[in-house]
């Protein structure tokens, strides 16, 4: 992982980094920068707290969740899944990335209470990676057919072949 080099951050992002570090301190497991972008890793239990603070703090003002998605690192045995949230502040034009790492089968509280726009994102993350979001109002398959087998964006899911889905004949006459 690229080490944190706070010098490459813009002034506004440095403030963000300072503020979040002073507020959460040790709860930020990892701080890294790359190409002028700030990435913070938090534990799953701090996920909502950090996001809430990012949204509600006057100075940070991250009022928009740009995207939320998952990632899969099969080489990390204990915590193979990662959920990433890109936050944007429209007035400050800053961005920050909050990450959390999850073990297989571990669930994460939903962010739909903070940003309703997370609804589709979390559904997609769930169907693609199998990361469950607790408290999500409607955690169903979004892009794939509703009885799709498997989680396609996991690295062990094959790219080609007839896996996962099938032609639906069971719904004949019901639609």
């Amino acid at each position, binding site marked *: 992982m*690229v080490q944190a080099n706070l010098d490459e951050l813009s002034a506004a992002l440095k403030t963000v980094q300072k503020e979040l570090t002073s507020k959460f301190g040790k709860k930020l497991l990892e701080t890294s920068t*790359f*190409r002028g*972008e700030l*990435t913070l890793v938090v534990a799953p239990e701090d996920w909502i707290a950090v996001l809430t603070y990012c949204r509600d703090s006057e100075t940070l003002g991250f*009022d*928009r*969740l*740009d*995207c939320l*998605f998952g*990632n*899969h690192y099969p080489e990390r045995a204990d915590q193979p899944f990662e959920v*990433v949230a*890109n936050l944007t502040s*429209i007035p400050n*034009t800053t*961005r920050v*990335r909050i990450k959390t790492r999850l073990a297989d089968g571990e669930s994460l509280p939903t962010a739909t209470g903070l*940003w*309703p*726009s997370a*609804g*589709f994102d979390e559904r997609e993350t769930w169907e*693609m990676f199998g990361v469950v979001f607790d408290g999500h109002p409607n955690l169903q*398959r*979004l*892009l*794939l*057919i509703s009885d799709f087998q498997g989680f*396609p*964006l996991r*690295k062990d*899911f094959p*790219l080609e072949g007839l896996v996962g889905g099938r032609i639906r004949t069971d719904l004949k006459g019901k639609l």
Partner: protein
Amino acid sequence: MSAPSQDQAPPAATTLRPTLEELRERKARSRQPVHGDREVLTVSMGPHHPSMHGVFRAEVDFDGEVIVATRPEIGNLHRGVEKLAESLTYHQVIPLTDRLHYVASFAQNHGYCEAVEKLIGMEAPPRARFIRTMAHEMTRISNHLLWLGIHIMDFGAITFQQICFREREYMMDMFEMLCGARLTHSYCRIGGVAKDLPDGFAERMYGALDFLPTRISEYERLIDKNRIFLGRAKDVGIFTSEDCAAWRVTGPALRAAGVARDLRKDEPYAAYPEIDFESAVEYEADVYARYRVRMREMRESVKIIRQCLENMPEGPVLAKDAAHVIPEKKDVMRSSAAMIQDFMQVFQGPQVPAGEVYRAVETPHGELGFHVVSDGSPKPQRLHIATPCFFHCQATTPMWEGEMLADVVGIFGSVDVCLGSCDR
């Protein structure tokens, strides 16, 4: 009566800018009361509904003609672009991004290439940046023309669509001249653009720039003051700036809510910092404001293209970077170093550092973000595409509630949605 042009940005209107509270109140007033206890009529809007945009499907509950609840459903056009991208090198992903939003495919190419260039830490040469800016604005014009025609057709005026397509055809011809394809351009490359401008391109483009503003004025004569259109578009589908932030509605819909958020200015890329333009902002947050924003953006785009053509620097269109760039064909044919670079790039792929970046660009329909995760291999470890349409489809739920059946498609169209981009 001449159409209000960009130059006469109305000073009187600025004093009448509605505040957020006023907009909230107006929104509450414009929507019909929803009675939860009544019997509802559930219909399936799309994907076989003739005027639903793309293959979007929504189950809509009606109380009479008023929408009580909607359940949007997407995924009918899911092609697994993100999964597919993990098996292709960074170069090979470019044609896939075309197919995200096939109406504005250059904007997708551009966003992806900007993201990868940020990841690599390189910059395209100046001429390439100007060509990119120009092509991006051409895309914006052609996308807005298509949008305009379809949007007015959503309100029942069918002739408009054909008239707009006529001008769009000209822009598509320009793209064909530029890169060889009309819809799926695949024109942007990591480190520049594929080909230099062809001979006679600038003259043809100037011709288009000359007649486009008059045509836009003509559209405005046709529809801008029409009492039926005003009645249909004003105070309909109000979506305030706070709603936009909560539901990640971006682009013209956000600017129509009075937020001067334009990535071309806020996070400049390509040649935008060197170009003088202003982003169109309206304050009413309704369907009509979104229409106004797009009409003004088209005029701005004409100005930007003209500036690009006038200030276009000479030089190469691809960066001289042996580790990341497929060289130009004429170099490959001539020099053996370029040929080796060609072979290395194709067989090995670009040498990107490990890391992850998020880069968003202002496409015609909103902010398109590419999140590229690299583990140092020539193939992306993960490519997440945060398309505006994905969130716009989701935002139909709060946008439609309390509105009337007749405005379903109109409001949906006013945020400009392409389901190819939404489903990925």
